[in-house]
């Protein structure tokens, strides 16, 4: 496609405004807000399991309208700063836009995408809690995991034809989806996801983590290390589907950092069925399917 990346970002960032959230969170927000005294922590839990709602909420909070002393990266921070009612009403306005259709013209299964994003987010947080040598906030790993593939759902929604070709090309050639996207769209989901969060003044670190989540990395960046490994585990264990058939090898530095190869890391994390079950509820994906 002939568009330059600047034009593409402009088009896609405008489009995200109109983008609906995921069916389960829309349904839960509508249910919860019927009760004026709805449980605040349940509300937070619903929003932070939906990449679209989270993205939209943080976009407004990090906008030039508020000059918070630090950039906002979590739904909890949003509640502390703006208050529960404001966050609730913002979520309600997102919910009022309807929900993402299960079927889109790209043939991309958004529910299985959500399952992948949720499990990657939880795994990244768990890996950080278990392996981090520094004071990295596990919440930063969660948000990076939740939003790392946001570019894909934007492609599916707003560039469906090109994205459909990329998905097919990636499957046929057994090449990574981002390589296929580059061929068919001229850009890939890491670039688009990174550009969107950068444009919306999310923390620079988050932008870089999204942009580099397929690149060869150094283990000095804890969020990136945890995100990369979580992403591979989620694909390896087929917890949802990111549309990418390729599971990347762990670099020797990562193997050293996490004390083993993929299988060993997975077994060190113990029983993942709870994490999987929680994500399933929100992604509304049946066990057989994922």
């Amino acid at each position, binding site marked *: 496609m002939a568009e330059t990346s600047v034009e593409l970002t402009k088009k896609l960032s405008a489009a995200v405004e109109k983008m609906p959230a995921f069916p389960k969170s829309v349904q839960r927000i509508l249910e919860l807000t019927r009760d004026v*005294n709805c449980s*605040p*922590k349940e509300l*937070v839990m619903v929003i932070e399991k939906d990449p679209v709602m989270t993205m939209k909420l943080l976009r*407004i*909070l990090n906008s*030039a*309208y*508020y*000059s*918070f*002393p630090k950039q906002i990266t979590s739904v*909890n*921070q949003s*509640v*502390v*700063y*703006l*208050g*529960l*009612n*404001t966050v609730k*009403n*913002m979520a309600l*306005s997102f919910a009022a836009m309807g929900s993402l259709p299960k079927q889109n013209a790209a043939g991309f299964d958004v529910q299985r995408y959500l399952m992948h994003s949720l499990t990657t987010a939880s795994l990244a947080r768990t890996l950080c809690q278990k392996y981090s040598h520094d004071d990295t906030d596990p*919440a930063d790993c969660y948000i990076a995991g939740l939003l790392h593939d946001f570019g894909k759902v934007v492609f599916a929604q707003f560039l469906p034809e090109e994205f459909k070709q990329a998905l097919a090309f990636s499957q046929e050639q057994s090449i990574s989806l981002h390589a296929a996207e580059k061929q068919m769209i001229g850009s890939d989901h890491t670039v688009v996801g990174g550009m969107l969060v950068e444009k919306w003044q999310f923390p620079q670190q988050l932008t870089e983590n999204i942009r580099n989540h397929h690149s060869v990395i150094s283990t000095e960046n804890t969020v990136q290390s945890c995100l990369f490994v979580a992403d591979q585990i989620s694909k390896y264990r087929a917890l949802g589907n990111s549309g990418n058939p390729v599971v990347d090898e762990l670099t020797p530095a990562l193997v050293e950092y996490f004390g083993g190869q993929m299988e060993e890391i997975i077994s060190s994390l113990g029983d993942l069925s709870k994490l999987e079950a929680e994500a399933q509820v929100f992604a509304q994906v049946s066990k057989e399917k994922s």
Partner: protein
Amino acid sequence: MKLKFWGVRGSIPSPGEKTVRYGGNTTCLEVRTDTNDLIILDGGTGIFPLAQTLLKELPVKAHILNTHSHWDHIQGLPFFIPIFIPGNIIKLYGSFDPISGEGPERIMNVQLQYSYFPVREAEMKSSFEYVAVMPNEVFQIGSATITPVLLSHPVVNLGYRIDCNGKSIFFTGDHEPHFNIYDPVDDGYKEYQSLIEEQRQSIVNAMQGVDVLVADAAYTLAEYPSKKGWGHGTFDSSIELARDAGVKRLYCTHHEPTRSDDDLEKVFAEAMSRHANNVGKLEIQLAREGDEVVI
């Protein structure tokens, strides 16, 4: 600086024999800087009697700082007569509202609709300007420096610190101390608690050492549990905030509309006795309509 209370009641105007001493008008404070710049904090019904006094000093230049858009802080604005008189300059400052996506212009747009009010916004003949302000972005009004501070209320609420020639006032508007939405056993409890503490500290820093703090003290400790999340503080929370910030004098305001003068004095005295030994040199008073303070 001078400060005058024109309205100290919360929620709804409450005239009558039981509120005649402390007053029934909703929130409005007048501040005059040393160079006589006129700053009005909120436009509850107290702004109407204030407006009467301004008709003697036309043309008026008024800077109205709105803490938030709830009725008891805006309902007097359509009756602020100077807005209709050519030659007056009125500026309304307020925050951006993330729900409507609009700034303080919405406060007048919404109220001056023909079915609710006989004069339309287009008929305000003064020079009327809206200024969207941001938390922590300092600005100047005449000889005063204004710092908006994000507080905690169901809608976005900005407290304002006013500094002028070494004297200072902080007005909270409506503010409920942050509370943890998680139970101590929940995963999110600790993280949330540290966010709350950080935010409380930034509020304490913002009001550090002011000569006068006017703070939302709507409830008693006994009333609070059933009003949790409604966005208001207690006498005790305001006293603690003032003490922690090294404030010189605290005025408790946003009196409950159903509270009689006698009851108000009674619950205030009870709160004072609870804090008799732990406030140091902090002076504490009830805000009373008509009172004037020279700072």
